[in-house]
């Protein structure tokens, strides 16, 4: 019940937020293109004309939507974490899970945004609009989230070792030293150590380095979820039920299909709809912001 409401509400509000921001763009584009796109954009722009009253309404709607969407984002990740935390399984039964999941979602979402922005920048020649400054700021946030994640890892490990039950302690030690130790240390490497490279300003402003760091974070976050799902189930209270898990071929294919669907839908979206806000670009172009070079990225 919780999951259905949390996920459905989050999807609905996120989709409406995205759509609302696109309405002025669709209205503008409907006057510039022909064919089926014109009909599509005109229908989706809902008659937006760009009057001052409409802009005032949009200005008012943005903070309301942001105020609704941000608590929803926190709640949806908290609710998903409570699905785990409310079980009695060692490694999951922890009060730190809600902030842990929220921080993890921001961390991996930011890494994904950096990778996608870098690809868009390269493919559509958007160097003038997506600048080194943007990657610099995102890298700082990524670094901050990496430190938060490191803090969470240390906190849950120390809590389990110092104050946890014997089963809890055993799971955490087994994670670091047992059959899945490679996964554990890969997670630490990708989520805690590699992002520290972003401490260097030169790295933060280098597109290739940022892609490497972001891909490492994505790999680390994927294996982090694998780690806490698999290791807790493979090593909980009853030693008779201890075992190992290796994904079967159908499971691997389902996982790859998930990546494929995401990629395909994303590509279709940026093919049909503007990947960059046209009206905000007009606004920014009016201020005539000079483009800066991304060091080494396009050398």
């Amino acid at each position: 019940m919780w999951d259905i409401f949390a996920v459905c509400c989050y999807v609905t509000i996120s989709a409406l937020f995205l759509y609302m921001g696109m309405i002025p763009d669709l209205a503008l584009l409907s006057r510039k293109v022909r064919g089926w796109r014109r009909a599509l954009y005109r229908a989706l722009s809902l008659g937006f004309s760009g009057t001052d009253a409409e802009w005032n309404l949009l200005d008012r709607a943005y903070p309301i939507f942001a105020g609704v969407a941000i608590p929803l984002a926190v709640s949806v990740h908290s609710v998903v974490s409570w699905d785990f935390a409310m079980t009695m399984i060692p490694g999951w039964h922890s009060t730190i899970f809600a902030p842990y999941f929220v921080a993890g979602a921001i961390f991996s979402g930011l890494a994904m945004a950096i990778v996608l922005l870098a690809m868009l920048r390269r493919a559509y020649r958007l160097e003038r609009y997506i600048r080194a400054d943007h990657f610099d700021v995102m890298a700082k946030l990524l670094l901050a989230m990496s430190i938060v994640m490191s803090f969470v890892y240390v906190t849950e490990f120390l809590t389990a070792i110092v104050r946890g039950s014997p089963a809890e302690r055993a799971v955490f030690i087994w994670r670091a030293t047992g059959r899945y130790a490679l996964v554990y240390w890969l997670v630490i490497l990708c989520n805690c150590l590699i992002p520290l490279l972003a401490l260097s300003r030169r790295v933060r402003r280098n597109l290739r380095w940022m892609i490497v760091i972001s891909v490492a974070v994505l790999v680390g976050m994927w294996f982090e979820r694998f780690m806490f799902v698999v290791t807790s189930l493979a090593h909980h209270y009853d030693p008779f039920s201890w075992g190992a898990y290796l994904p079967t071929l159908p499971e691997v294919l389902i996982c790859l299909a998930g990546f494929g669907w995401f990629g395909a839908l994303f590509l279709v979206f940026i093919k049909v709809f503007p990947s960059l806000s046209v009206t905000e670009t007009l606004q920014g172009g009016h201020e005539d912001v000079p483009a800066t070079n991304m060091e080494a990225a396009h050398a």
Partner: protein
Amino acid sequence: MPEPWIALYDGPDEAADALRSLDELGIEGVRLISPAAYPAVHMTGRPGPWRLMSWLALIGGFLGLATAIALEVGSSVAHPFDVGGKPVVAWIPYGVVMFELTMLGAGVTSFCSLIVLAFLSRLRVPKAARRAVAGDRLAIVLPAIAGERSDAVCAALAGASAQEGAP
């Protein structure tokens, strides 16, 4: 009823200059149509029913909350499962659904009110003016001015390098 005056501009700076000139002349009821949210958009005194949106969002939030309570309490009472003597109507677990539906109600109401209020606000701007704007141009729309001030208004609009004017 006389046709409104429409002046078209290629850039936001020219439109902003014209708005300033019109303001100095004390002309009221001036509206702007713009492809982007340039600063000039906020020079017409923030017209439109934008203040209503927050109230409508609040009402939508309360409606969402009421729906969540009705759904949770109604389903628990309709199917009362006794779990170890725990109360059938359990408010703490309801909290998540109540929060989610409150937010959903506020968000969906905001979106719907944006669409409806935008439609209503468009009715106050002549269709001819909305159609006159194409591409990246901006339009200033004002009520027809008669008498001595018409020359001054024309000069203010043209002085700001209007590309075209009507009527």
